[in-house]
């Protein structure tokens, strides 16, 4: 654990000084600032923020994570020539990448809420959006590391990363709609829940909808979730499923990292 902390300390220093993180923080700050300045309705601002978070965070996290891992390859080799076990090094690098990016988001996202005094308006909603952004960052960095550990070719790895983002963020809803259309004569509720759990971006959306009690207004899967689990259970289940989305890719990539040839 001490080794993980050492690596983490320096990795955080390295990532936090990167211009990417500053730009990323500024982006969320100005989006929030703009929404609160130009939109009088807090609920609308929340929904716009949610839509931005579920599209932008996965994209940035999966691309930043892949580029960072590929660029760290020689450094990883150098570190592995030191007396350090692979598990500690991998944990250190993963947390050292995920924590600064999450922190960048958290700062940029929270500042406008405090500046405009909006935190108390919908404290629960603010916390859920913050939590969702952080979870999505960890999930997509875990996915990007899984891709980068398995695929040595940087161009192919980045291609796979963008493809996964496209499928989960853009194409997935279309595929779900197509399935609903094709199997409209069958009861689909349970399959819809399974399909939602298989997509962390949808899960993030559900988490938000459950909190705002507007699941029924926001599409089929939201309504199904609410009907089946009710608000609190639905919230817990989607939260646990999001946690599984971090743990499972991390577990497999860590296992592969331990026996990888550098």
């Amino acid at each position: 654990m001490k080794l993980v902390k050492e690596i983490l300390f320096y990795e955080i220093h390295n990532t936090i000084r990167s211009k990417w993180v500053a730009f990323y923080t500024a982006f969320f700050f100005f989006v929030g600032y703009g929404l609160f300045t130009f939109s009088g309705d807090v609920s609308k601002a929340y929904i716009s923020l949610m839509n931005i978070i579920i599209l932008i965070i996965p994209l940035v996290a999966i691309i930043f994570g892949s580029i960072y891992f590929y660029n760290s390859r020689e450094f990883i080799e150098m570190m592995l020539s030191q007396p350090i076990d692979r598990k500690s090094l991998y944990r250190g690098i993963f947390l050292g990448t995920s924590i600064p990016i999450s922190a960048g988001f958290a700062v940029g996202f929270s500042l406008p809420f405090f500046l405009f005094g909006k935190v108390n308006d919908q404290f629960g909603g603010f916390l859920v959006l913050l939590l969702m952004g952080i979870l999505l960052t960890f999930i997509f960095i875990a996915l990007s590391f899984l891709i980068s550990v398995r695929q040595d070719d940087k161009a192919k790895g980045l291609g796979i990363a963008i493809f996964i983002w496209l499928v989960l963020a853009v194409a997935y809803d279309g595929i779900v709609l197509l399935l609903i259309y094709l199997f409209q004569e069958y009861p689909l509720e349970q399959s819809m829940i399974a399909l939602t759990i298989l997509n962390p971006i949808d899960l993030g959306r559900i988490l938000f909808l459950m909190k705002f009690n507007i699941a029924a207004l926001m599409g089929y899967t939201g309504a199904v979730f609410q009907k089946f689990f009710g608000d609190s259970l639905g919230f817990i289940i989607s939260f646990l499923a999001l946690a599984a989305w971090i743990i499972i890719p991390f577990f497999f990539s860590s296992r592969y990292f331990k026996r990888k040839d550098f």
Partner: protein
Amino acid sequence: MITIKNLQKNFGKVSVLKNINVTFEEGKVTAVVGPNGSGKTTLIKSILGLVKLSAGTIEVNGKSIADDFAYRNSIGYMPQTARYPENLTGNEILSLIRSIRHLNDYDDDELMKIFNLEKEMEKPFKNLSGGTKQKISTLIAFAFNPKIIILDEPTAGLDPVSSSYFKDLVLKQKELKKTILLTSHLMNDVQELSDEIVFLLDGEIKFHGSVQSLLEDKNETKLERAVAELMTRSLPQ
């Protein structure tokens, strides 16, 4: 001392190292030479645990390296290409490695002076030249007083003055009974520094002996010519 027995390394169906048996002794500089793709770097990476062995054993100072990482406390390694996290400084990397090695017994002052690194150590790596990064790699490899020093193409990025200092440093370490292993394409460097030569071709050791015996065997005074002859003879006609 490093003892390698029946080492085999395959990448998929390609066999990169085939039945390697060799011992690298204390107080000697051994050069691993061979054409590109002959398996030099893979051999070094096997000793460092960077690649997993397909078969065979490696012992460092009498202990098997399988499933161990503490043995790397006794190894200083200088990689072929030096690349570090671009926003960190040389000093930060050095203190990271210092804390990983739990060592207070290190000597970097002399090396910093030799390579004129004091000011460079304060700058982030993205502002440093390739040669300066290479010098920092040298510093990391030598500063912790390791018993074994592994150098992969060490002089390739160094200017003539630094290269000359570097060679003095290697010879000084040899006097201290260190086990030194190096790879290089620069045969003048190899001739100047090494006592022994391991010649690798297609993952097999084709020659292992003293530099002197190779020169005598090939009736040459220059190592470059002797190795070139070894290479052309070993290739299928």
